[in-house]
């Protein structure tokens, strides 16, 4: 288990979380925690201190950006890299790339193939390590 990166997925789609966890862990590179609401996500984040967070934008009650704001204000976890997952930003808008920065934040359009997601996660992690 050593060397595996801890990933936190916060998404209200239970099945999406389930498959994402399985697929990411199948690569052998990650350990994945999942949360179905913003509140659970924040709690889990403080508890597990993940290496990276995948955060759905559109969730009932607390939205992705709301969650992000709270995390940013929390000194213990405010430097964890964060990638938004969204169904309403298009790949073409991003200029064909699977990820896009909007307002200094990374976005990934759903659906995304696991291979691409893994590449993107690793890229963000490397950038973080280089800082």
């Amino acid at each position, binding site marked *: 288990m050593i060397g595996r990166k801890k990933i936190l997925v916060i998404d209200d*789609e239970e099945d999406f979380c389930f498959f994402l966890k*399985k697929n990411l862990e*199948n690569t052998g590179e990650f350990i994945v925690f999942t949360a179905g609401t913003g509140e659970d996500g924040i709690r889990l984040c403080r508890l597990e201190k993940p290496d990276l967070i995948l955060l759905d934008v559109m969730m009932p009650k607390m939205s992705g950006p709301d969650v992000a704001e709270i995390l940013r204000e929390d000194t213990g976890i405010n430097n964890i890299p964060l990638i938004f997952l969204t169904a309403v930003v*298009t790949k073409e*808008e991003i*200029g064909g790339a699977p990820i896009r920065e909007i307002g200094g934040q990374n976005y990934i359009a*759903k*659906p995304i193939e*696991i291979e691409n997601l893994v590449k993107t996660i690793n890229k963000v992690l490397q950038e973080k390590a280089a800082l």
Partner: protein
Amino acid sequence: MDKQKILVVDDEAIIRQLLTRSLLKEGYEVETAEDGNIALEKAKKTSFNLLITDLKMPKKDGMEVLKEVKRTNPYVELIILTGYPTIETAVEAVRIGAFDFICKPFDVQAMLTTIKQCLEKQKYQIKHIELSELMTFAEITRLITSVFELEPLFNRILDSALSITKAKRGSLMLIDPKTRALNVKAARGLDKNIIRNTEINLNEDISDKAVQGKEQALTSSTLNIPLVSISSRSKGNALGMLNISDKVSEESFTEREKTLVFVLAGQAAVAIENAGLYLQLQENIDGLRKVIAQLNDTQNQLIQTEKLAAVGHLAFGIAHEIRNPLGIILGGVELLNNTLCKNDNASDEVVGKIKNSIDRANNIIVDLLKFSRASKLELKLVDLGKLLDEAAALVASRARLSNVEIEKNFPKENVRVNADETVLRQVFFNLYTNALDAMPKEGRLKLSISLNGKNKENNGKKENFVTVEVADTGKGIREEELSNIFNPFFTTKEPGKGTGLGLSIAHLILERHNGRIDVKSKVNEGTTFVVKLPQAA
């Protein structure tokens, strides 16, 4: 009714007196002349109904007098009175149209009867001539008033005037309202150069008097008649003039011809005025038609935009509702493939097919999302040529593969528009992709930018527009499809190949940029999309 006038020409005083007395008693007006010259003098002043003349006279022969009087007064009747009848003079008298040929000495009573018959005949003949003249005249006026194009109208007026007066040469001149000069509008029998260079300033020439004074300016062989409309609109001002000269037979113009041509001029002026009004009306109607067409066009564009905006509205919600399940399906398939059926070729194929279908559904959502993007533009100054190039770079390799040559025709200077770069690039990318789809084997894709100036009104003020043409030599679009191509989901491509949203998106995006998109297409020849955008100041 006026008394009928008779001129008696005889060198014998006794005959003059005898005839005068008898004729006065019958109620005729009588004048006499003792020789040909005096006769001609008198005939010039008075237009006689009847001429009774001796043939053998000193100074001027009776036959000569007759001919000359007839020249100015073609209706005059003749009775020849002679003491030396010969076959030759009799024949000549008949030829010239004399009513009778009476030998001296004569019976006064018989003479009076002959005169009565003669004048009676003349009366009916004049009536007849007048009637037929009036009929021709009525026909001419009818013709004139039925012509609404100016040039044919001018020619017809002039021809009518010439035919009424039996003249060979003439011209119709109109006053230019700005320069106040007379310009030749129609001419017959005149040198072309003279016509072209004739521009009479209204401060010179006899035509001046004719126009300003509204009176006939007369020289013996020329008629200059002002064109004064009899309608109330013109307030009695002359529009121009009608000049007639050179009678076919070298006679001078008769009073009657002058009257007729004068009346004709009045009618002609009305006709010219009407034609002018008609043209004006026609222009107004044409203008109105254009406005209506524009309105229809705008309405269609608006309806189209409405539809598309509604799609854009829906797109956001749909994207969320559909792409999330798509994400789950994709995750599930990948999980199955990677764990349960690892390294199984058959299941790889199944997974591939499922993934394709997910892609297909996703592409529609992606296109739909572009609608909602189109409503939130981030405008900035964009170099249009550069943008077209960037979009072309995206399809360059595909174009090479299908032997499509890309040809560019951009102006030297940079053409800038206010636009959302990403979104506008999308428009041209869509157009290029469609063009390439229409040219699977080979072809030419022509991109051109032109500045064609003020060609659209916007709230009353003119704006400069830029036109971009994207022309291909592909299969073209059928007439019945042409009206549908901008509708969302209209596609003629195989399932999975087209979403039918590309042009709808282009339409909405251009609408949002205050531009527009139109199409021209011919089956098997090619298609041209014409994009217009406001040029940035």
